[in-house]
Structures are given as structure tokens and as C-alpha cells.
């Protein structure tokens, strides 16, 4: 198990973006994803499309139709992009106004479950989702219309 905390990425009236930071790591999950592909000749254009699209989410909200459903029926894990690309960014979509950006990678298998790397990123978000639900239940986390209020660290 590793300790992690929630970091603010960007906030507008339409959507607040967060990411997860493992305390043992230098970079957050989303920064790791970004840094992995920013200098990659093959995947940089797809990364830029994803970043540009997340920028637009700030204007329109994290609407359900903008995401590819991933994970299981009972979690809130989604992925970008919806269209054809081997690059996947996994996120936790709590609502139109709250999105947690995770890590991601190149999907070379038919399903994410077949990739140890990708299933690890999805599992992190699934576990985080469970902890948020528990925290909301026991009152240590408050989820408002567009914010997550917590000073918790999470054991993931």
C-alpha cells in the first residue's frame, strides 16, 4: 500500500480538475502521463489532443458523452480519447463538474485488463473511487457540486 493525496489541477465554474499524487513519487499521476509522452514523436500529437481537450472540458464540463467508459459497472473510471488512438488517459469522472485525472499509456492489447501497466492505472482509480465513497459516507470527505473537500491522505 502507498500513501497518496489529491492535488488540484485546474478549476473553472464548469469543472474542477484534480489528480492523485503518491507521496513516494516526485510527480503526480497526470504529470507522469504527460512527461511520458511529451517528447515521444509517435504519441505527442495524441497527447496534445488529449491535453487540448481537457482544456476545453474547463469550458463545457466533463460531460459523460466525452468519455469512454472503462473499469467496472460500479466504478466511475473513464478514459480519453473516445476516438481511435492507442494512447489512453484514465480518469475518475465524479460528475460533469468534477474530474480526477489519472495516469495512462499505450494500449497494445484488446482490453486494458490484458496489460499489467494499464490495469494498474485503472486499479489505482478504482481504489481511489472506493475511498472517496467511504470518506463521503463517514464524513471525512465532502463532495460539493464542483469540489472535493478533503485534507486526507489515502492508502492506495
Amino acid at each position: 500500500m502507498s500513501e497518496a493525496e489529491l492535488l488540484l489541477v485546474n478549476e473553472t465554474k464548469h469543472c474542477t480538475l484534480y489528480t492523485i499524487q503518491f507521496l513516494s513519487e516526485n510527480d503526480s499521476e497526470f504529470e507522469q502521463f504527460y512527461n511520458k509522452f511529451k517528447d515521444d514523436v509517435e504519441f505527442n500529437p495524441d497527447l496534445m489532443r488529449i491535453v487540448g481537450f481537457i482544456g476545453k472540458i474547463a469550458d463545457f464540463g466533463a460531460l459523460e458523452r466525452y468519455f469512454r467508459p472503462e473499469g467496472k459497472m460500479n466504478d466511475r473510471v473513464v478514459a480519453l480519447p473516445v476516438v481511435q488512438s492507442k494512447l489512453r488517459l484514465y480518469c475518475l469522472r465524479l460528475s460533469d463538474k468534477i474530474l480526477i485525472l489519472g495516469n495512462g499509456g499505450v494500449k497494445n492489447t484488446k482490453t486494458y485488463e490484458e496489460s499489467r501497466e494499464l490495469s494498474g492505472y485503472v486499479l489505482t482509480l478504482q481504489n481511489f473511487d472506493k475511498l472517496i465513497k467511504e470518506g463521503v459516507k463517514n464524513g471525512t470527505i465532502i463532495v460539493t457540486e464542483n469540489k472535493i473537500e478533503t485534507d486526507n491522505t489515502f492508502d492506495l
Partner: protein
Amino acid sequence: MKTMNTSFQQMLAEVPPCIQQEVDLELAISNRIYDLMTERGLSKMEFAQALGKRPCEVTKWLSGQHNFTIRTLSLLSAFFGESLVHV
């Protein structure tokens, strides 16, 4: 709450203008299609059926990330009776 080390605005500034233009256009067209579809009271399934397309095709159109061809834009413009793109 702490913020991410790298500024998101800094990341956004790295997006080349041509890619940002592509993202903006794809999203604007997608949102317009969604508005027209809902204004007409059509579900995704009904919309797909009316156009002879599979629902997964409509899912792509509404995702805000689809690279529309002129052929698809023409089909949709004819269906809605208004141009989706103005030149």
C-alpha cells in the same frame, strides 16, 4: 489543497495551435449536433436509425473528438436542414 507542480496552463500552452484548432472545431461541431438532436427530441438510437447509422457511430460524433469528413458533415447538414459549418 495543494496544486500540481506543473501548471496546467503551461501544459495547455504547449498544445500546437493547429491541434487546438482541430480540438475546438471537433468539439463545437459535436456540441451543435447534440443540441440539434435533443431539440428534435431524438434519442441517440433514434438519431442513428434515422440516418441509417450504427449507434456507435453517433457515440463517436457526440464525443467531441471525431474527425468529421465533409461527407458526414454534408449528411448531417442535410438531415438537420442547416449547415453545421460556415465558410
